[in-house]
C-alpha cells in the first residue's frame, strides 16, 4: 500500500497550483463583479482541463480522459485556495450525466452548457406526497396534447432542493396509467417559469425555510414539448436509475467528515470537557468509525484508479456517514449542555447570522437527521446492502 499519489501526479499538482495562484485573485470584488470574476475563472479552468472533465468540449466541458488521481489533485488544490469548483447542485450532478447517457442531441445542445455555466438550475421532481421510498408509485399525470406536440402535466411534487431558485425540473410522471407500476412512467424535462406551476417552500424541523430550502410544486396543466422527453415513453423509471446512480456517486465526503470531527474535538475543548475520560472515550470511539470511513474512501478511490470493483463496501458509505453523523450529534448535544436551550441567532436561515457560540451545533444535531432520509433513506440503504451486497433474497413487494 502506498498513499502517495506518485511523481506524475505531484508534477500535475504543481501546474494546478500555479494556475490557481495566478488566476484566483478575487480581491475585494463583491456582488455582480465577483460573479463575473468567478465565471471567467471557471472558463479559464475549463480551458486548462480542470473542470467538467467528463463533459465533451462541444457542450462546454473540457473532455479529459478519466483519471481519478488528477481529479483528486484538482479538488485538493482548488479546495486549498478556496477557489470555486464546478457549479454544484442537481443540474451538474444529475441532469448532465443523465443527458450525456440518454439525452437526444438537441437536449444536450439545449441544456448542458447553460447548466454547467450556472444559468439553469435544476430541481428534482421525483418524490410526491404519496411516493417517498416507493418512488415508482408516482401519480403526477402526463397526457399528450391533442396534436401530440406537448405533454400536459397535472399533480404534485415535493422535497425539491433549491426549489425556489430552480429554473427547470427533471421529473417522473405517469403517462400509461394501465401499465405495470414501473413501466408506466416517463422522464420529462420542464421549464418552471410558466403559468400552471405554483411553488411553496417547506418549513423544516430546523426552522429553516425560504430561498434555499425544500419546496413543493403544484402542476395545473403545466406544459412541456415532447422533444423534452428523455428516453422512451414509459421507460422513465429506467432513465431515473441512471440519475440516482449519479446522485449516489456524488454524496459522501471523507474530508468533510474529518473536519467535522475535528470541530467536535474543538467543541469538547471549548466546553472544558476534553479532560473528561468519558468524553475522551466517546471521541475515540467515534473516531474509529470516522477513520474507517476515511480509509474506506481511500480504498474506493484506489479501486477506481485501478479500474477494479471495490465490492460491497461502496454500498455502505452513505449509511456509514449517516450513522457517524448521528453519533457526532449525540455527543455534541451532551457537550453543549444547556447552551443548546437557546437557538443561535440567524438559525435556519432566518435573517443575518448573529454571534454564534457552541449552540451553532444545533444545526448539525438536527440536520444529521435529514441525512437518514435524503438520497435514499437509511432503511432503504440497509435493504440495498442486504440484497445487493450480501445476496439476501429480495422482498417480494419491492
Amino acid at each position, binding site marked *: *500500500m*502506498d*498513499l*502517495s*499519489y*506518485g511523481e506524475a*501526479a505531484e508534477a500535475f499538482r504543481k501546474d494546478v497550483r500555479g494556475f490557481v495562484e495566478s488566476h484566483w485573485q478575487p480581491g475585494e470584488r463583491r456582488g455582480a463583479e465577483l460573479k463575473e470574476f468567478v465565471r471567467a475563472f471557471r472558463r479559464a479552468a475549463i480551458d486548462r482541463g480542470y473542470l467538467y472533465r467528463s463533459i465533451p468540449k462541444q457542450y462546454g466541458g473540457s473532455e479529459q480522459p478519466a483519471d481519478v*488521481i488528477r481529479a483528486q489533485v484538482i479538488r485538493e488544490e482548488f479546495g486549498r485556495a478556496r477557489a470555486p469548483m464546478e457549479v454544484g447542485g442537481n443540474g451538474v450532478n444529475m441532469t448532465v450525466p443523465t443527458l450525456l447517457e440518454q439525452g437526444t442531441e438537441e437536449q444536450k445542445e439545449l441544456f448542458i452548457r447553460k447548466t454547467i455555466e450556472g444559468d439553469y438550475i435544476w430541481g428534482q421532481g421525483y418524490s410526491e406526497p404519496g411516493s417517498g421510498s416507493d418512488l415508482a408509485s408516482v401519480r403526477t399525470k402526463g397526457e399528450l396534447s391533442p396534436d401530440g406536440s406537448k405533454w400536459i402535466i397535472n399533480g404534485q411534487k415535493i422535497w425539491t432542493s433549491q426549489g425556489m431558485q430552480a429554473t427547470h425540473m427533471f421529473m417522473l410522471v405517469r403517462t400509461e396509467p394501465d401499465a405495470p407500476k414501473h413501466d408506466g412512467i416517463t422522464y420529462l424535462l420542464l421549464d418552471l417559469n410558466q403559468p400552471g406551476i405554483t411553488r411553496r417552500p417547506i418549513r423544516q424541523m430546523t426552522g429553516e425555510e425560504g430561498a434555499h430550502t425544500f419546496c413543493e410544486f403544484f402542476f395545473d396543466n403545466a406544459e412541456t414539448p415532447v422533444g423534452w422527453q428523455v428516453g422512451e415513453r414509459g421507460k422513465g423509471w429506467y432513465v431515473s436509475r441512471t440519475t440516482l446512480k449519479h446522485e449516489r456517486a456524488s454524496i459522501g465526503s471523507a474530508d468533510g467528515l474529518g473536519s467535522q470531527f475535528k470541530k467536535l*474535538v474543538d467543541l*469538547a*475543548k471549548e466546553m472544558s470537557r*476534553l479532560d473528561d*475520560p468519558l468524553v*475522551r*472515550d466517546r*471521541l*475515540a*470511539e467515534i*473516531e*474509529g*468509525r470516522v*477513520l*474507517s*470511513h476515511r*480509509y*474506506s474512501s*481511500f*480504498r474506493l*478511490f*484506489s*479501486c477506481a*484508479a*485501478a479500474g*477494479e470493483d*471495490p465490492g*460491497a*463496501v461502496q454500498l*455502505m*458509505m452513505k*449509511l*456509514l456517514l449517516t*450513522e457517524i453523523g448521528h453519533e457526532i450529534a449525540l455527543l455534541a448535544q451532551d457537550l453543549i449542555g444547556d447552551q443548546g436551550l437557546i437557538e443561535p441567532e440567524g438559525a435556519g436561515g432566518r435573517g443575518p447570522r448573529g454571534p454564534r457560540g457552541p449552540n451553532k451545533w444545533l444545526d448539525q444535531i438536527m440536520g444529521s437527521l435529514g441525512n437518514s432520509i435524503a438520497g435514499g433513506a437509511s*432503511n432503504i*440503504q*440497509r*435493504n440495498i*446492502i*442486504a*440484497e445487493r*451486497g*450480501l*445476496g*439476501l*433474497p*429480495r*422482498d*417480494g413487494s419491492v
Partner: protein
Amino acid sequence: MRFHLTSEQVAIQDAVRGTLSECWGMEQLHRFADGEADFDPASWKALMALGVGGLALPEADGGAGLGLLDAALVCEVAGAAAAPGPLIGQIVGAIAVAACANSATRELLTAIASGERVVTLALDGDLVQSAHAADYYLADDGAGGLHLIEAGDGVTIESVTATDRSRPVSRVSFGTVEAHPLFTAGDPMVQRLRDAALVLIAADALGGAQHCTDLSVEYAKTREQFGQPIGKFQGLKHQLAQMALEVEPARALVWYAAYAWDAGLPDATRAAAMAKAHLCEIYTRTTRAAIAAHGGIGYTWEYGLNYWFRRSVQNRAWLGSPAQHRARAAKLAGW
C-alpha cells in the same frame, strides 16, 4: 497511490485459507476444544510450510521480504478459521529476533522463521497461549525491557480451563530462567513490537467478525420459517446489513494500521491502538449478533459459533481492553 490488496496479497490469503480448510475444519476444532493439548502440530506445520512465520522478515534473514500488512492478512484468515497456535507470537517473535543484534538470538532466527521453534507472547500478565508447546517466550520484564526466555527450568506452567478453546492459555510464571535480552526499556523497538501485536490481533478480530457475518448470512438464506427463507424478513435483513456495515469498512482501518507500521509513519502507534480497540469492539458485537441471528442453533456447542465468541473474549482482553487503547489514542492525539 494504492490502497487495496494486490493480486499477490489475495493469493497469500487464498493459500492460507486453502491450507486451513484441509487441516482445520469444525471436526478438528471440536476435538481440540475438548482435548487437553494447547497446540496442534499438524495445522502448525501446514501453516508454517507456507512461510507465514517469516513473512514479514527481510529476505536476508530467511523471510519473504513482505510486511506487517501481509502478516495481518494471514492473521485475518487464521481468525476466520479460528486456527490454533500462537501465530501472532511467532510473527512478532520473528520480527523481534530479526531486529536485535544479539548474536545468541540471531542464531535462532532460521528455526523461528520456519516455525520449527515455537514462540509465544508473555507480555502484560501471566496468561500465555500454547505455553506447554512453546520453545520461547517473548516476555517483558516489568520494567520496559523485552527478553526471549527459553522453555525449561525456571518456567512454571499451570494449566487452566481456557475460555478461548481455539488458542488455550495457561498460567505461566518465570523463576530463575535463561533469558536473552532483546531490547532494553526505552528502545523504540519495544513499542514497535507491541504495535505489531496489536495490529495482528485486530486482523484476527476482523477475520473472526467477517466469518460470523458470513455464517449468519448463509444461514439466513437457507433456514426457512413461515414458508420462506428467514433472510427475506426485513428485521433480520437489517440486522445482517448492520453487521456487514460494521465489519467491512473497518477492514481499511486494519490495512491502514499495518501500512503505517510498515512505512514507519508518525501515527503508526496511534493507528495500532485505534485498530485494536475498534476491531475488538466489533468482534464482540458481531459474535453476539451472529448468535442472535441464528437462534437456538447458534446457542449450541455443536454448531460452533461459540468458538468465535470465545476467541473474541481473548482478543478483546489481550494486551489491553478497547477502552484502554482508546484512552491511549486520545493521549497520543494530544487531546
